[in-house]
């Protein structure tokens, strides 16, 4: 039972961290990044290299993966997405470019995996670093990776709130997301903001990859396997909200782990490979029933409240004015 608890919470938290990054870049560039999971796989291999090849603590891989995956995301944004946007490419071209980058990264990551195995004779496929972790309270106790994962997710939720609502950089970021051209006329350096967001998104995915390999397994094929799950998490939460992403990621992650174990009890072990179907169904149901995701329930209420306040203000002035793109 405790294993399912750890499995569920670690997986769900890792998924939530990935969903936050995906939603962040989606909010900023309006492009769903099909290469997002490859940032996480790079993190996994950073963990493998740091621990098994260089013989250092696997936890040191967290900052290294943050930097490496962040740099990769930054490259993707600056070297591909921005160039295409400047050329006024269509949304579909941009999406295809992210898929193409994903294909490219599958090649790179597999070459890294093969290279590690052939050069250092270290198992680099379906590897797990669980045995390197510290377990507090001996066998059957509390694994450190569990604590670190929880702390990371909580820190992310709080840190994002602080950044976006308490610093003027974060406020500029929200402003630039809402209306890029206005931000530019007001002298806000939107380029720096967007680059920062992409770096953060990639870096977080890299850290998620490290944690993933310390409890579950690391393998290049996970890029394709996890992709529907993180999209499902982001969409269930509401694609363009980072808090929705945390909520959606946790929900989808937990239902994936718990749902699979329930189905194993009911139907038998053959259901294990079909696990990716669960988040996919969650996504489809969301798209059919509530395309704006769970966060839509909250924003709808807020929007209505705002419109009422605006109407009250106008009535006080005794003036009816034309709508000026409000609520758009």
């Amino acid at each position, binding site marked *: 039972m405790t294993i399912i608890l750890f499995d569920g919470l670690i997986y769900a938290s890792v998924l939530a961290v990935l969903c936050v990054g995906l939603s962040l870049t989606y909010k900023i560039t309006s*492009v*769903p990044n*099909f290469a997002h999971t490859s940032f996480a796989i790079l993190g996994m291999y950073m963990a493998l290299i740091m621990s098994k090849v260089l013989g250092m603590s696997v936890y040191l891989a967290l900052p290294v993966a943050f930097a490496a995956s962040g740099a990769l995301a930054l490259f993707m944004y600056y070297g*591909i997405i921005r*160039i*295409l946007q400047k*050329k006024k*490419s269509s*949304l*579909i*071209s941009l*999406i*295809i*470019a992210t*898929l*193409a*980058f*994903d*294909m*490219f*990264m*599958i*090649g*790179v990551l*597999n*070459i890294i995996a*093969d*290279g590690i195995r*052939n*050069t250092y004779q270290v198992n680099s496929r379906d590897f797990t670093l669980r045995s390197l972790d510290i377990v507090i309270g001996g066998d059957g106790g509390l694994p450190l990776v569990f604590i670190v994962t929880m702390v990371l997710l909580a820190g992310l939720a709080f840190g994002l709130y602080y950044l976006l609502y308490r610093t003027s950089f974060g406020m500029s970021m929200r402003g630039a997301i809402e209306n890029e051209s206005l931000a530019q006329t007001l002298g806000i350096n939107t380029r720096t903001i967007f680059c920062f967001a992409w770096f953060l998104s990639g870096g977080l995915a890299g850290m998620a990859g490290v944690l993933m390999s310390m409890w579950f397994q690391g393998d290049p094929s996970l890029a*394709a*396997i996890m*992709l*529907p799950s993180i*999209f*499902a998490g982001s*969409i269930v939460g509401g694609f363009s909200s980072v808090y929705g992403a945390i909520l959606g990621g946790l929900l989808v992650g937990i239902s994936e782990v718990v749902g699979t174990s329930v189905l194993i009890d009911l139907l038998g072990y*053959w259901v294990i*490979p*079909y696990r*990716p*179907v669960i988040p*996919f169904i969650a*996504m*489809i149901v969301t*798209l*059919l029933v509530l*395309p704006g995701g769970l966060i839509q329930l909250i924003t709808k209420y807020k929007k209505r409240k705002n419109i009422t306040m605006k109407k009250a203000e106008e009535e006080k002035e005794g003036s009816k004015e034309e709508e000026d793109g409000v609520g758009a």
Partner: protein
Amino acid sequence: MALDPAVIFIGDLVAIFSVYLIINLSLNLEFGFAGVPNFGKVLAVAAGAFVMGTIPFMMFGILVDYGGLEPVDDNIMLVHQINAYISAHPESVLGVFVVTLIVAVAVGGLLGLASAYPAIRLRGDYLAITLLGFGEIIRIVGINHTPLVGGTLGISIPDMLAFMPNEYRFLTASFVLLAFAGVIYLLVARFTKSPVGRLLRATRDDDLALQTLGRDHVKIKFKVMMLAGMLGAVGGVMYASYVEGVVAFGYDRLNWTFLPFVMIIVGGMANNKGVLVGTLLFVAIRKLVIYYNDSLDGLLPFDIIWLDYLALGGLMILVLIFRPHGILPERPQKTESLEKG
């Protein structure tokens, strides 16, 4: 009599070209003309292949006494037995193949509809994600549901041309595939030049304008998805019957979704001739690469298959940046008048 290696090379090239031409024409209908980014093209192709991996066994079961042999468990022995029957009764192939094609077309069309249903009313990116998901799922089913097409090991399937002597069989297969591809090319070209084709491009360019014109754009997209699903399944049937087997692992995103995208974007979107050029170019290059691959093997500290991913991914990005309209860009097309005559 052994075939000349050059003949094998060209025969294989023609066959693979024909398979991809069918698939790319179908993707071009969805993506090039209607603007639906089908990131799950593999769904229809795999469905067609899986039908080819099951229906002929059922059909021949009526004609041949299997003697308790199972299509998956006793695969080699059973295929051998069926091939012997085909050699003796060539006329049986026609019925079996036609029925298989009809089933595949039906399944492909239904899957095209079903996979588009959840997100067809939403923005293009939601649709892309949903379709990608469907593509992943059919692979999971194919790999894990062993009774379907043999799971991870795959299966061999009866050779529809088993009645021919070996040296003719190979080139005949290539020729039949090319004929199928040619007919489909002409049909698609006719279709895209018709008023319906014009409507398709209108759907892609401006949903809103089309709605105000009173045309139901969702209905049009559904029809295209169905049609493209049917054609994709035909491509799957053709490929499976050409290689005489179905291995679920082979129906991956790179080869049956991404590669078709690369081919039609390099060739020229929404331009059937462009698709022809792009397909020919890539099939030829990839054949040459595979041909010379063996000489590289062992020199590199990794599996050369990954260079495919690097090259195709990198090339796609470069094309999108430097030549987004492909070799043969879309041209304003002369379409027939809506009023006949």
